[in-house]
């Protein structure tokens, strides 16, 4: 399962910063490991991500937010997430089911437990994860999905939790979503 996570990070870095940067990171990691050349980031994706954050003068949290937002822009992932709800509010309330759904497909994936609480004027996502980096990843993911649904909202860390204030459910048109992936792939409108 770690392999999948490392590959996701590598793919994010390749698509965001280019193959050259990934090769520089791979060389750096190879040196640390004793010189055996490598052309991927297997086994040390997170370490590579933190290295890039330092190079780009970004905070660690910003870097993990970027990867969350990037995930939400990937068509297959975005589609899977859209199955959770027919509007953004519905999607947020359905996030509690996300770990269960993820486990249906990848039983070993360590997805944090999520609890959703409705507050007055906001929705609070409580993240129970051993790894604190999950919080910024989820913030990025939820921001990306807000764009996808066309919702206008304020999403921010609130201690270890995430606070979402929805100002307008249908601020923008949002991206097209059809249940049938065939229709979606053609971009067709009935």
């Amino acid at each position, binding site marked *: 399962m770690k392999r999948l996570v490392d590959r996701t990070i590598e793919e994010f870095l390749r698509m965001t910063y280019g193959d050259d940067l990934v090769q520089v990171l791979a060389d750096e990691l190879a040196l640390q490991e004793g010189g055996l050349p490598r052309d991927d980031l297997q086994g040390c994706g997170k370490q590579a991500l933190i290295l890039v954050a330092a190079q780009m003068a970004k905070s660690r949290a910003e870097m993990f937010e970027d990867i969350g937002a990037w995930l939400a822009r990937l068509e297959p992932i975005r589609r*899977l997430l859209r199955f959770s709800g027919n509007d953004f509010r519905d999607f947020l309330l359905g996030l509690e089911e996300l770990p269960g759904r993820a486990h249906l497909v990848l039983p070993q994936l360590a997805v944090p437990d999520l609890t959703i609480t409705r507050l007055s004027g906001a929705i609070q996502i409580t993240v129970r994860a051993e790894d604190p980096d999950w919080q910024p990843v989820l913030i990025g993911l939820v921001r990306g999905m807000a764009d996808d649904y066309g919702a206008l909202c304020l999403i921010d860390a609130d201690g270890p939790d995430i606070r979402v204030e929805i100002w307008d459910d249908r601020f923008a048109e949002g991206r097209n979503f059809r249940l049938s992936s065939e229709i979606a792939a053609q971009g067709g409108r009935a």
Partner: protein
Amino acid sequence: MMTAHSRKDAAPAAALPLSPDALSRILPMHLRLDAVGRVLSAGQTLLKIVPGLSDGVQGRLIPLRAHEGRDVIETVRQASSEGRRLFLGLSHRPDIVLRGHAVKAEDGTILLNLGFGPSLRRAIAACDLTDADFPPTDLVMEFLFLHEANRGVLSELSRFSAHLETARRMALSQAHSDALTGLLNRRGLTLALAALLRPGQAEGPRPFALVQLDLDHFKPVNDRLGHQAGDALLIEIATALRQTIRQADMAARLGGDEFVVILRDMTCREQLARMASRIMEAVEARSPEGIAPLKLGASLGIVTCQGACRLGAEAILAAADRALYRSKNAGRGCATIEDLDAGVGSNPWQGPP
């Protein structure tokens, strides 16, 4: 109707007063028929799939499976009284089959509830169904989620295994070849030889000759012209060897200036002697001027092995090595050919032809 649990004084449960609209919301795939088969109400999703269904089921829904060719109303009525599953095709979309069941109400009307079964994805694509077309009790969203997630995981897995396979092939070829010359290395040669000797091939093990070759006066090349020149010369010799032997033959470098060639289906002494002199000439032709008056040459030890040869790879290589040393002791620049099948005491052939 009273149940066993109801108390004597309890009023009988009233018939369920549901409007067609409420019925459509709770059962979006339902169809309610009166006693003669006229449509009383149809669910909103069913109407999306079968437009015009409110005007009648005849000619729109077709009985399938056991009831193919029968009257649709009669089939529905029969299924409701026997409690059997119904399979209904759509006349305008033969690729979609609805399945469901029907119950008869006390007032003689029939209520059908239908679903998609395996035609679910086709129906969603054909009618552009959305989340709102399915009741929350339906597992359709979970099904679609699983379907797409599985497809993603599978394609990721197959990408990974293709990647592994390429890496494995590359590692294997690197493990079996000599980095400097690209010829086989000792491990590659041992495997190739073992494959040649393996019994169980259709026509049995084939005859072959194994040539062990050692360069004469190679050390001065390294000493006087430098190791880079020595390496360049080894690469040249390897290229020359490859050009001298045939496509089906194999060449290996065991290290230093020691080479081995396997010549398949060649055990005739005259042919081998000609091959040996071609190899020696090719090596001599590449003698660098910088080592004059010395001249680069090659000493060869050749062993031939008929199909029935019972020796292992190591023993054959050792025999070739002994033959090579006879050539060295005989003054270098010559070849010794020994027939491994002839047994001990046979007369080896020696000499430049």
